[in-house]
């Protein structure tokens, strides 16, 4: 089995030693102790494991390590910059867009991907893009409003 010895995560080159066919999620969580990305279903159906690979929202539970090697991976741990929360994190807090919080990292990473592609999404565009992320606590309306608020503040629109 081929092995991978390095992974680019959150701007750092990290040493690993793992089989190429392992899931990216298991390497992030078990080998690198980056436990912000969650296991929810193992089949790419719930989005709790969402990370960015070269800026694309990706389900890390069904992504083989081999497919992620050499690419830029961003996890929830990597979007807070020098103690300042990402505007989407701020917006989730402000809108109380979480209950148990288990889906939250995946929701936030999907939102980051959405807003980087579409800085001013309509409600329908948000719903379509986010529909692969499950919040079993049902905070969807708050997440939609958090994304809209974040979009506004990232465009420099203020409140």
């Amino acid at each position, binding site marked *: 089995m081929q092995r991978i010895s390095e992974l680019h995560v959150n701007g750092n080159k990290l040493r690993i030693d793992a089989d190429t066919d392992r899931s990216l999620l298991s390497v992030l969580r078990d080998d690198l102790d980056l436990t912000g990305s*969650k296991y*929810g279903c193992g089949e790419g159906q719930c989005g709790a494991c969402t990370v960015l690979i070269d800026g694309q929202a990706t389900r890390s539970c069904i992504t083989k390590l081999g497919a992620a090697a050499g690419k830029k991976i961003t996890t929830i741990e990597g979007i807070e910059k020098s103690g300042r929360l990402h505007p989407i994190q701020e917006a989730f807090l402000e809108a109380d867009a979480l209950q148990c*919080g*288990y889906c939250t990292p995946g929701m936030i990473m999907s939102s980051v991907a959405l807003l980087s592609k579409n800085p001013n999404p309509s409600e329908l565009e948000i719903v379509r893009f986010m529909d692969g992320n499950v919040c079993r606590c049902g905070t969807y309306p708050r997440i939609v409003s958090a994304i809209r608020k974040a979009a506004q503040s990232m465009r420099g629109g203020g409140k």
Partner: protein
Amino acid sequence: MSKHIDDSIEVERYELFAQPAHHFNLELERRDFFKLLGGGLVLVLTLDAFGSQESGRQEGESGRRAQGNSTPKDIAGWLHIGEDGSITAFTGKVEFGQNIRTSLSQVVAEELRVPISSIRLTMGDTDLTPFDMGTFGSRTTPTMAPQLRKAAAAAREVLIDLAAEEWKVDRASLAVKDGKVINERSRQSLDFGKLTRGQKLLKVISENAATTPADQWKIAGKSVAKVDGRDFVTGKHRYTSDTRPLDMLFGRVVRPSAFNAALVSVDSREAEAMPGVKVVRDGSFIGVAAPNAQTAARAASAIKAEWKAEPQPSATELFDYLRKQAAPSPQANVRGSIPEGLANADKKLEQTYTVAYIAHAPLEPRAAVAEWSKGRLTVWTGTQRPFGVRGELAEAFRIPEERVRVIVPDTGAGYGGKHTGDVAVEAARLAQAAGKAVKLLWTREEEFTWAYFRPAGVIDVSSGVRDDGAITAWEFHNYNSGSAGIQHRYGLPNQKIVFHQAKSPLRQGSYRGLAATANHFAREVHMDELAHAVKMDPLEFRLKNLKDERMKAVLTAAAKAFGWGKGKSAPNCGNGIAAGFEKGGYVATCAEVSVDRESGKVKLMRVVEAFECGAIVNPDQLKNQIEGSIVMAIGGALFEAIDFDNGKIVNGRFARYRVPRFSDVPAIETVLVDRKDLPSAGAGETPIVGLAPAVGNAIFEAVGIRLRSLPMAPNGLKT
């Protein structure tokens, strides 16, 4: 049924109760507290027997006597003010997303007159917190919050005493403000840390501490954000599944081929030959522990186990089966005479309603990390019953409970689905055999299969109504789904209400609102059918028959906000209304649906829900719970159902079991009815009960099809 609590609150029969097996003894020595918590002030709140529904249940409840000769007194909670002024409250309740860490912090902060950021809450740790039955039944706000409030109020009074002594002044001239005791006259002040420094003061108070009335609340009653929200949006919070002791193995369990299957033979040689793999066999339990998760999975799948299972009922025959399996001579709630009531009716109606098994599907599947050290067992696990699971572990390993510690990190939801300790016992068994800590995470398929389900049920309703809208007879039989919410707030002169316990083909247990959803669905759809039978507006019909002013008030509030009575907004649209009461909370739900007659697709357009649960502790978190309940209810109302065939779950994956998603969510408006004159009730469950009947009634108005089975439109409507 418990005798000592409000009769109007049905105790859920399917809560998986365990015996409360341990009581802290009030002889608990002061040095124990201070060893555990450090110096300062410790305030212990005791309860009179039966003073509380759950915390520190008395032995009368459990039929067991606590050990030792002294009479145990029940402890509701304790609170510690450290020598640095830090304030920590301790409760056996657990945080599962209902945001009680926040609401309980609010009430403690309120009574101690400090900002909420000064409060730390230690929750759900059997070594550190007082005994608690579990976090279920919407009991945190009505029972735990007042108890912690009393402890905090008493602590405030002790701090005043300490300051009065220090300054040698009359305590009446002192007040507590912003974390300090102040003397208004002399303008002196002392912060809590200065007062508790060098102290080892243990105060035991009983339930009579005076607390702040709701109309004077300054911190409670306000919308406070999730207290540790930052840890969740940054991914820093460690759920059980993220917990990682040093030198840990990963576990995996080999599951039977079907429910109730017996193990015939096992060949585990291949797995045993894998480096670092430990295979554990104990009765019919087969599991492995391995250095990493993928090796554990590989080893488990290399084990060849042969199972034998008897034929079992399948989903297609479920409802007949439940009726046939009903236990004989159930208890009936009877008032007046049904035959007389029917004789006085102008119209009579008999209908049957059904509800399917559904899964909780919390996004964090069951998980446990177990570690044995010097004969002591520590387990981190996301359970709603930390003390109950401690009992399960003690029993499974035949060790005293004192040697078991269960720690519950804030958990990725439960909705009533995480009462049992299966995963904890499995992890502990693997850890025991491996001689190292073991982390066991259930897969999504395991979570869907080996947990338990919300009970399915059949409900028969027969009724009579006069043409003027007065209901004259009401007979209601629920088979298997449960008795929660089976009682109602209508004034019905002749009624017979019966819950028939049945043998369930699937393992079933608690669920958010439990049977209240099934009972409200049957009752409120039937009310709609009666209203149509006598050609009355469904709102008017309900108001005519309701005898409870609080129920009428929420119903009117919801109808007003919804704009009830304006009629259909388009030919294939319809409006529905439903009302309910459960666990001390009143709910009314209005829904608007649109049905595409071509495709049969039902689109939920708009939901307005009014809710009243006494004095509101945190309006925004309450709204969050109501919105979440509405969204979760959409699944059970329209499309969620567990499919099973001969002892196997057929659709145990998110790809096959549809849960509500962004695109299912309608415009939601919540209307909060704040009653500062009434004690606060819980709100995590009751807001879920109104949605299904409101939607069913709306579908009827839209297209004239009456749906009497949940889920109502798993594959759209056949119009």
